[in-house]
C-alpha cells in the first residue's frame, strides 16, 4: 500500500526523522491558514501517489499566505499528468503546505528489501533529486549500497559508512546517522517495503533534512498496523480494482480488449500472454482464486463488463481440488444473473472437465466452449476482433 507524502513524513517524524514542518490542506483557505502558522516562504505540493510532481506543475513556491492560497487554488482540482501517472493523470484533492527550506545539496536515500540476500539494503547517492534509475544505469558507482540484517537491525556504523562516503562533514554524519537510524527503525517497525527520501538535503546551515518522502507498506502486514491501514486513500486506486478487492478478486485493469477470468496468478499471466501471441491485448489480469464459486464468478463478470473496452471474455479455469462441474454450475448461474452481451469463451480443464463441458453445451447459453488453452486463446481473439457489443 502506498501513502501520500504528508502521511509518509508523519510516520517518519514519529521515528525522529527531521522533516520540514507542514500540514495538509483540502481547500485554498486551509492552505492560507497553514502558511500563516508556518510563517515565511512555503511550498505547496500536490498530494497524489506518483512521482514527477514538480515537473508536472504540482509543486509551487509561495512567498506568504496570500500566495499560498492562490497556488493551492491552482493545484487543487488539477489533473496532474507525470510519467508515473499515465496519460489520464491524477486528480489532485489535497495539497501539502510546508515551510520552504534552502537547499545546498540534494542526496538520494532509500531502504528496501533485498529478496536475493534476504536482508534490507540501504541505497544512497550524492546525486539526489533526479531519477535514481538514471544514475543507476549511467553511473552505478555513484550509488552506495549497504546490507542491513533484519535480525541485527540498525547500527550506527551504517550511518558513518554511508555519511562519509556521501561527503558529509563529521557533524553532518552525526545528524545523518540519526536520520538513517529513524528510517531503518521505521522500516522494520511498520513493515514497510520501501522507504525513499528523494531528495534528502543539506541546508546552507549544514542541517540534514528529508525534503520528500515516499513509503510503501507491505499489504500482508497491515493487520499489525491499523493506524497505517487507515491511511489508505481509495481515490488513488482504480475504482474497479477497489470493487474487485472487496469481492475477494485480484484484478488489475490493462489496456486491451479481451477480458480474462482465470484461477491462479501464474495461469492468469500465462493466459494474458497467449492472448497477446494470438494478436489481441488482454483487458485485465483477474485471478478468481482457488474457489471459483458462483459468487466470485458473478462478481468477476460484473467487473469485467464494466470496462467498456472489453469486446470478448475468456474464462480459463484449471479445476484441481475444485471440480470443473462445480465451476461450470457457477458460470451458468452467473451468466443468467449478469447480462454478458459480449462473446464468451469458456475453457475448463482438469478434474471432471468432461462433465463440465457437457453442462456448458447443454445450458443453452451462447458460449463458445474450448478444450485446449491454445484453442481457447485463438477463439477469444477471433471473437474480440469480429464481435460487436
Amino acid at each position, binding site marked *: 500500500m502506498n501513502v501520500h507524502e504528508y502521511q509518509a513524513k508523519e510516520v517518519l517524524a514519529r521515528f525522529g526523522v527531521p522533516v520540514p514542518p507542514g500540514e495538509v490542506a483540502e481547500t485554498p483557505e486551509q492552505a492560507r491558514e497553514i502558511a500563516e502558522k508556518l510563517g515565511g516562504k512555503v511550498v505547496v505540493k500536490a498530494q497524489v501517489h506518483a512521482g514527477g510532481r514538480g515537473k508536472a506543475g504540482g509543486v509551487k513556491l509561495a512567498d506568504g499566505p496570500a500566495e499560498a492560497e492562490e497556488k493551492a487554488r491552482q493545484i487543487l482540482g488539477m489533473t496532474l499528468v507525470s510519467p508515473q501517472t499515465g496519460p489520464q493523470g491524477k486528480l489532485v484533492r489535497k495539497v501539502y503546505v510546508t515551510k520552504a527550506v534552502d537547499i545546498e545539496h540534494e542526496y538520494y536515500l532509500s531502504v528496501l*528489501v533485498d*529478496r*536475493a540476500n*534476504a*536482508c*534490507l539494503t540501504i541505497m544512497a547517492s550524492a546525486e539526489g533529486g533526479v531519477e535514481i*534509475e538514471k544514475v*543507476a544505469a549511467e553511473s552505478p558507482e555513484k550509488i552506495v549500497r549497504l546490507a542491513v*540484517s*533484519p*535480525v541485527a537491525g540498525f547500527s550506527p556504523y551504517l550511518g558513518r559508512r554511508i555519511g562519509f562516503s556521501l561527503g558529509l562533514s563529521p557533524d553532518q554524519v552525526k545528524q545523518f546517522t540519526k536520520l538513517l537510524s529513524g528510517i531503518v527503525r521505521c522500516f*522494520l517497525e511498520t*513493515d514497510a*517495503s520501501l522507504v525513499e527520501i528523494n531528495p534528502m538535503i543539506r541546508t546552507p546551515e549544514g542541517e540534514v533534512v528529508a525534503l520528500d518522502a515516499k513509503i510503501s507498506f*507491505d499489504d*500482508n*502486514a497491515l*493487520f*499489525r498496523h491499523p493506524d497505517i491501514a487507515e491511511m489508505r486513500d481509495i481515490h488513488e486506486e482504480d475504482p474497479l480494482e477497489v470493487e474487485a478487492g472487496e469481492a475477494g478478486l*485480484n484484478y*488489475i485493469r*490493462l489496456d486491451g480488449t479481451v477480458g480474462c477470468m*482465470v*484461477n*491462479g*496468478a*501464474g*495461469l*492468469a*499471466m*500465462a*493466459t*494474458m*500472454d*497467449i*492472448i*497477446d*501471441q494470438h494478436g489481441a*491485448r*488482454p483487458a485485465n*489480469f483477474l*485471478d478468481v482464486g482457488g474457489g471459483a464459486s458462483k459468487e466470485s464468478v458473478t462478481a468477476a463478470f460484473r467487473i469485467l463488463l464494466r470496462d467498456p473496452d472489453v469486446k470478448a471474455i475468456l474464462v480459463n479455469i*484449471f*479445476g*484441481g*481440488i475444485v471440480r470443473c462441474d462445480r465451476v461450470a454450475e457457477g458460470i451458468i448461474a452467473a451468466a443468467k444473473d449478469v447480462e454478458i452481451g459480449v462473446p464468451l469463451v469458456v475453457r475448463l*480443464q*482438469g*478434474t471432471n472437465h468432461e462433465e463440465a463441458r457437457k453442462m456448458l453445451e447443454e445450458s443453452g447459453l451462447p458460449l463458445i466452449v474450448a478444450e*485446449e*488453452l*491454445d484453442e481457447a*486463446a485463438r477463439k477469444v481473439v477471433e471473437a474480440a476482433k469480429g464481435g460487436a457489443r
Partner: protein
Amino acid sequence: MSILVDAATKVVVQGMTGSEGTFHTKQMVAAGTRVVAGVTPGKGGQVHEGIPVFDTVAEAKAKTGANTSVIFVPARFAADAVLEAIDAEMPLVVCITEGIPVLDMLKVKNALEASGKTRLIGPNCPGIITPGRAKIGIMPANIHTPGPVGVLSRSGTLTYEAVDQLTRRGIGQSTCIGIGGDPIIGSPFTSLLPLFEQDPQTEAVVMIGEIGGTAEEEAAAWIAANMTKPVVAFIAGATAPPGRRMGHAGAIISGGKGTAAEKKKVLREHGIHVVDSPADIGATVAKVLGRA
C-alpha cells in the same frame, strides 16, 4: 527414485484441525501419503481424522518420527509455525500459506541459514508431489502420473496446466515442486535443480518461472554449468506492465528489471528450451525426450 519425498516420508501437518488442514489432510492420505501427526497448540492428545494431534512440533517429531512438516496455518501465524519447525530440526518443511509478511520471511530465512538442518519449500506454494507415492500439499493428485519429468514452478494452477499437458501425452513426472510465488522463498530453483540432476528417475526438467526477481537467470547459469539433463522453461508475464504486482507478491517488474523478455533471453543463451506459449510445454518436453 524421486526427490525429497517418497512413500517412506512421514508427515506432520501443522494446523491440521483447521478447515483447510482437515480437508487437505484427507486428500493427502487418499493420495497415499503417510500422515503420522497433526500439530495444533492446545489440542494435544486429541485424535483428528484418525491421526494423533500434538501441542508442539518437537513433541510430534519425537513421538512419531515425522521427517517432514506441512503448514496450513493462517498468514499472521505462519512464520512462527515455520520457525517452530526449524527449531524442532524438521528436515523438510513445506509451507502452503499465502500472504506472509515479507519481514517475517526475512527472519525465517535467517533462521534457516543459522540452523542449517531444515529445507523449506514455499511459502505461497502448492507443495510437493511424487506421483503415486506421496503428496505433501494441495495439488490435485489425479492429474499426475509417475514418470521421468521433474517439475519446478513458482506458480500453482499454471503448474497443473503443465503437468496435465504432460500426463495427457503419456509423460509422467518424477517429482513436482511448487517453490512459491513470494519474493522470499525457502528454496529457489538453484537449490532444487541439483537434486533432479542427481535423481536417476528424472530425464528432463520443466521449469516454470515468472516475471520479477532474478531466480530464473541464476538457474540458467547453474544449468549451463552443471546440468546434463534437458530443461524446458516457460516464463509467465510477458504482457504484464511494469510496477504492477501480478497476483503473486514476487511477480513485479521493478526498475525495468525482471521482465519476461530478459529472462527468456538469458535462458536461451544458456541452452534452455524456452517455450513462448504456455500451450507448448507438453509438446516441447515430448520433443526433447524423443517422444514427439
